[in-house]
């Protein structure tokens, strides 16, 4: 139950034999095919992108609500790395990380946040509404849990067209108390839809600890038994563990076994949005999670196990930093949307 220490989160350690991350699956065969550097590159890109977003929000160049993905990089990157091009990715309002992991252009993503004509939605969507249909990235949805039935519908189309493509739907613990969460789980199970429900349980719905607002504790995956949806819990700070769990679920879905559910225990190191002073939780809790920062621990493990070199990591960091700086420059220099755009893109 909730303790008085304001620490309500749950760290899941997925490692076997006392080893962490990459080491964990080194012998499993997955490792042989894994592009570790690419996984690191994506996580680092998201981290640096988000840091740049925060800075430019402070400068007033990004407005509106801005929800950063800092701390949760391993979940999105690990999960999305298992997908095919014809799969769909659906996200909530904390969507930058998922978009970037899906390969949505960094420049156009940043330009969208700057409200520029070169943005992914021509500046009409903003931070919470990134879209790139060509990449199968179907948004950025800002009504909590509203994206769940959309994902079910995308999966329905994939099933209807008799493909073995699937839809992955990311959502947070906050969305589980919405009625449509139950509705969608039931519908997906009844129709055996090829959808992977991916819960990023970062323990807080905005400022509300999940323990304060949910009956039944902080684990959601056992509840999936109600719907007959196979569910797993995974350490969301461990990109390889996430990847492995997602591969398993994806395989089952492609095999026609219907919806699957993964709950990743994760943590945002920053506030709900940049306006959040985090009065509702203690520094100790944040620190405890920061020690497990995947952007730090993953490359350290890779180097320790001689899977990559420190030089390779440094090279990627330099590349990413340059790409993010260029994205900010691109966004800054891009034109504002023409006012005539107000009336475009309403009806097809």
């Amino acid at each position, binding site marked *: 139950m909730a303790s008085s220490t304001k620490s309500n989160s749950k760290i899941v350690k997925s490692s076997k034999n006392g080893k962490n991350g990459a080491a964990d699956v080194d012998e499993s065969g997955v490792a042989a095919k894994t592009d570790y550097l690419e996984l690191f590159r994506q996580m680092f890109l998201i981290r640096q992108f988000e840091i740049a977003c925060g800075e430019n929000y402070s400068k007033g160049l990004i407005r509106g609500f801005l929800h950063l993905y800092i701390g949760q990089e391993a979940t999105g990157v690990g999960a999305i790395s298992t997908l095919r091009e014809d799969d*769909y990715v659906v996200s909530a309002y904390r969507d930058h990380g998922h978009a970037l992991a899906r390969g949505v252009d960094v420049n156009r993503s940043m330009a969208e946040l700057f409200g520029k004509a070169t*943005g*992914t*939605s*021509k*500046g*009409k*969507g903003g931070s919470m*509404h990134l*879209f*790139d*249909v060509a990449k199968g990235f*179907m*948004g*950025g*949805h800002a*009504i909590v849990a*509203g994206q*769940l*039935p*959309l*994902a*079910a*519908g*995308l*999966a*329905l*189309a*994939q099933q*209807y*067209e008799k493909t073995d493509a699937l*839809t992955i739907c990311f959502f947070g613990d906050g969305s589980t108390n919405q*009625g*449509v969460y139950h*509705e*969608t789980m*039931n*519908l997906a199970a*009844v*129709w055996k839809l090829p959808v992977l429900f991916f819960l990023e349980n970062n323990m807080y719905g905005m400022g509300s600890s999940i323990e304060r607002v949910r009956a039944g504790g902080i684990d959601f995956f056992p509840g999936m038994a109600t719907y007959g949806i196979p569910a797993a819990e995974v350490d969301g700070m461990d990109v390889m563990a996430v990847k492995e769990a997602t591969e398993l679920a994806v395989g089952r879905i492609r095999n026609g076994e219907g919806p699957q559910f993964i709950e990743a225990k994760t943590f945002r190191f920053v506030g709900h949005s940049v306006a959040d002073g985090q009065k509702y939780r203690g520094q100790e809790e944040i620190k405890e999670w920061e020690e497990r920062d995947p952007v730090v621990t993953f490359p350290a493990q890779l180097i320790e196990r001689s899977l990559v070199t420190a030089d390779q990591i440094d090279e990627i960091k330099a590349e990413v930093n340059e790409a993010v700086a260029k994205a900010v420059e691109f966004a800054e220099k891009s034109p504002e949307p023409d006012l005539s755009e107000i009336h*475009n*893109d*309403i*009806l*097809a």
Partner: protein
Amino acid sequence: MPEIVLREALKRGLEEALENDPKVFMMGEDIGEYGGAYAVTDGFLKKFGPERIKDTPISEQAFLGAGIGAAAAGLRPIVEFMSISFTLVAFDQIVNMAANLRYMSGGQISVPMVIRAPTGAGVQLGATHSQSFETWLAEVPGMKVVCPSNPYDALGLMRSAIKDNNPVLVAEPALLYGDKGEVPDEYYEIEIGKADVTREGTDITLVSYGYGMRPVNDAADKLAQRGVSAEIIDLRSLSPVDMDAIVASVQKTNRVVVVDNARRRGGVMAEIAADLQEKASEWLDGPVMRVGSVDVPWPYSRGLEQEVLVDADNVLTAVTEGYGI
């Protein structure tokens, strides 16, 4: 020309779409095994199979939302609500998702989906089952709203709605499902956004749609007995609204009464009245008169409900009050 009831006209439109386009499928509560609450989809499950005629759980948000997703992926879903009052529980999906998706994705996504829903009062279903929320949804940019008043329009509008690449609400007046009318065997469509002058006249313009056409037609007959020639406009589409047709008629008759069978306050006719005073006041001999059902929750008891529901006498009273005829 052969006569069929409005229910059959809708059914024909749905059936031919299912036959001609494999991307068209239907979802809704009890549309399959049961045959539909108003029997519009009776026999469809047997003919088209469970993959295309999908019975849903009672989960309006989930199945309407699933329709949006399927449409975003390129299918052409037709989603049935058992009552337009039930759209309320799916309003987030209809408004925030279906109508906004195209705009907030910068034009990347379209949602070619038809939402069907019986609308209107008059059969003693009480406050929660008798409302007319097509008026609310007509305000939402990014979607279209149509409402037929007769079998011919029902088929023509349904065909256009299914072919449209946007979310289209087809509000089906529940009281008119059994109304008969002529429907040709030859193929035709009715353009969304165009009104129909159903009766030409010279003295006053009466504007309505859907079930409201019944009291309007009755009122026009009574006016004719008094030597008043009424021109009648059936909107057919509530969004977009054909203001040009209304203004053109008012320029001819110089008098107008707009008639909503939904509650009077805040409806489609309120919007039309506001537009008319901007666009047509110089041609008007009096005020834009607005008639609608009484602004109360729908009562159950027959006498009360009939009193609340707009009728021909309400229209005639407005004609007299506004123009002294």
